[in-house]
């Protein structure tokens, strides 16, 4: 009995969580009328884009058995760089490519230090958190980087705010999530990432190029973080070197709520996306209920702990 219950939880756990959270805000009648509208969900989806794209990269890293604390700083750095390039007249595509490139470079450095120097990823990326934040402030001369206009500004909005169309950013996030999920499940690279996170020694014994693979994981994740930086820019419409402080913690929370283990070797893209949605729904719903900010923070904190506790249960006590 418990075994089947566990298997159901294992497959659908985060999804059930999402439904519960939505139900929580749909029950009070004064709230329901607006909360359950398509328009509100459009807002929720849009608000989830940045965390989702970050969660794609973070899922790769956490499944591989590592962690990345430098995401918020990377997002700020790449956003500032994109803003500076817009000032210099670069096009939207070129700016995006540059941001992704910088994110990738940060990931390469993180990965090389983690795999090459055999240092704990927690330490390396904690250092990188400071380095990127400092670089962002330096490049931005410690102030916001303003620019006239750019097509990037429209990626997180739609021409008709009341219409049914979703912003480009939402579609990009959905497409990337689908692609990353496929890569993790169906490719040699993806299964090697699981092998690396599950047991690095066994992976090495089986001929998996573990050092190269760890670097690739960080670099690929860095590309996602760079792209998240572009969407952050699109939302703010200026380059802010102090933005996204603590974003990495939201992203890690999304991945963990989604069922990944910090020990590596487990986690799914769908779970992480649902984890990100759970947090967005909580924020959105709390705002509509008129709950103060600090109350939201407490709720999200509780949700993280409950999610990991349930995860332990469904794994049979071994988290």
């Amino acid at each position, binding site marked *: 009995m418990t075994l089947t219950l566990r298997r159901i939880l294992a497959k659908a756990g985060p999804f059930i969580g999402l439904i519960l959270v939505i139900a929580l805000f749909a029950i009070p009648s004064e709230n329901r009328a607006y909360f359950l509208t398509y328009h509100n969900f459009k807002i929720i989806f849009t608000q989830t884009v940045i965390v989702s794209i970050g969660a794609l990269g973070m899922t790769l890293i956490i499944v591989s058995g590592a962690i990345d604390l430098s995401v918020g700083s990377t997002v700020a750095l790449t956003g500032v760089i994109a803003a500076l390039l817009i000032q210099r007249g670069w096009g939207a595509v070129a700016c995006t490519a540059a941001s992704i490139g910088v994110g990738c470079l940060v990931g390469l450095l993180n990965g090389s230090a983690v795999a090459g120097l055999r240092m704990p990823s927690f330490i390396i990326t904690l250092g990188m958190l400071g380095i990127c934040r400092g670089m962002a402030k330096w490049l931005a001369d410690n102030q916001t980087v303003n620019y006239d206009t750019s097509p990037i500004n429209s990626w997180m909005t739609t021409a008709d705010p009341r219409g049914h169309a979703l912003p480009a950013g939402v579609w990009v996030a959905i497409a990337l999530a689908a692609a990353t999920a496929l890569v993790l499940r*169906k*490719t*040699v*690279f993806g*299964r*090697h990432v*699981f*092998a690396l996170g*599950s*047991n690095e*020694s*066994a*992976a*090495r*014994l*089986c*001929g*998996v*190029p573990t050092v190269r693979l760890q670097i690739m994981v960080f670099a690929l994740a860095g590309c996602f973080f760079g792209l998240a930086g572009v969407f952050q820019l699109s939302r703010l419409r200026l380059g802010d070197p102090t933005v996204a402080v603590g974003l990495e913690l939201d992203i890690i929370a999304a991945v963990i709520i989604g069922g990944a*283990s910090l020990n590596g*070797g*487990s986690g799914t893209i769908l779970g992480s996306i649902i984890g990100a949605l759970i947090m967005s729904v909580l924020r959105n719903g709390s705002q509509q209920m008129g709950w103060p900010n600090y109350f939201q923070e407490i709720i999200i904190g509780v949700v993280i702990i409950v999610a990991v506790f349930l995860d332990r249960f469904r794994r049979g006590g071994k988290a």
Partner: protein
Amino acid sequence: MNPAARLSLDGVRKSFGATQALKSVSLQVAAGEVHALIGENGAGKSTLLKILSGAHEADAGTMRLDGRPYRPSGPADARRLGVAMIYQEINLAPHLSVRENILLGTESAALGWISAARSRRRAGEALAGLGYAHFPLERPAGEFSIAEQQVIEIARALLIRPQVLIMDEPTSSLTRADTERLFEVIGRLREQGVSVIYVSHFLEECRTVCDRYTVLKDGEAVGSGAMKDAGIDSLVAQMTGRPVSDLYPRTERRRGSAVLEVSSLSRPPRLKAASFSVHEGEIFGLAGLIGAGRTDLARTIFGLDAATSGTVAVHGNRGAATPRQRWRQGVGFLSENRKEEGLMLNQPIRDNITLTKLGAFGRMGWISRRRQTAASVRWAGDLAVKCRDTDQAVGELSGGNQQKVALARLLEHPANILILDEPTRGIDVGSKAQIYEIIGRLAAAGKTVILVSSYLPELLGLCDTIGVMRRGELVAVRPRGEWTEPELLGFAVGKD
């Protein structure tokens, strides 16, 4: 019922859901008796130990300790009543000192302040009782060898002056010399009147150290008696329900050309200038004590550790030695350390079997899950792996089945030169027999096997050629027919 028994069990039953793990087990252990509890994996030993140590409660039956009913409510209660257990895995806090570890949970303290003098005396006495009075009490436990750490654990268990001490596979990671020392410790316990329940897969050891035995099979005690009246063969026959004669298959083998040539391979201090060659259709055994360099030799050949000098030629090819390169050359490696290096415990059986060649199950880096599953299902069937399906995490399987999965990886690859490091360590006799049969079949099919084993009968039973290592050197290589067990042992310990 024997009134003199220190510990007596009568009709103990235990079920988990529909599975009956123990069907009416009776057992008598006298004071000062070392009692072997033997049986294959899954025979119910672990369940019985858990009931004895208070981790599980029996469904039915009675247990008595010194004539009084014994019903522990948990491991702490069992210890209080006088039954202590030493687990197979070392449970020490490596950063704490020997003294702190021994006294953990029972510190000599006044108002929370630990009395250094008193705790040193208590820890020292516990160690002295085991013949280890010289142990430095203030060094961190993690700096000691596994064998010494085990002594620390035993000292900790003895602190409560138990009447019954249960030892679960205490020698599984000990060298022969350390095992001897452990036996001396057990001898001292016997003199002090402590009853020891000794669980081990190593039947020779049980015969050396135990007075009486009980054999468990399928949750029942199928035999018991005095150890001096029982031969290994009869014990194995009781455990498996079949005679021992066909444990080691003598397959028809044709020795072909040399496929792996090792010359002056070194990685000091553990490996010094080893040279030998192995041929198609040959099973080459490596004997020696633990720490003699056998595993180092195997790992260096496979490229897991880098050689400082010397060469390895696979099919005449002296290229780079990395695990990746070796798999490409058709060399496979089975680690002695199944859990830490051999398998990805939280990953499915399927991925564990196919990890070395995932690219072969599809094109351009994509994997066909269907083909991958088909291949792993076939091996799970061929090797009789007991599992729900190949999607099951390999960590949920029993030791013997895990080892079959690890071996299936080499067969699926397929490796033509198989380096097997302690392939039968810690698995039950039934699985052992199956693995011997597979090894025999592989050699008959013209494959090459390098077998590292600490179990001499296994080497003598299976191998065509046996080399002995001692202190990092390969000191002798001879055909099997020219070796006897005492000679192998003599070379291993250094009596040339």
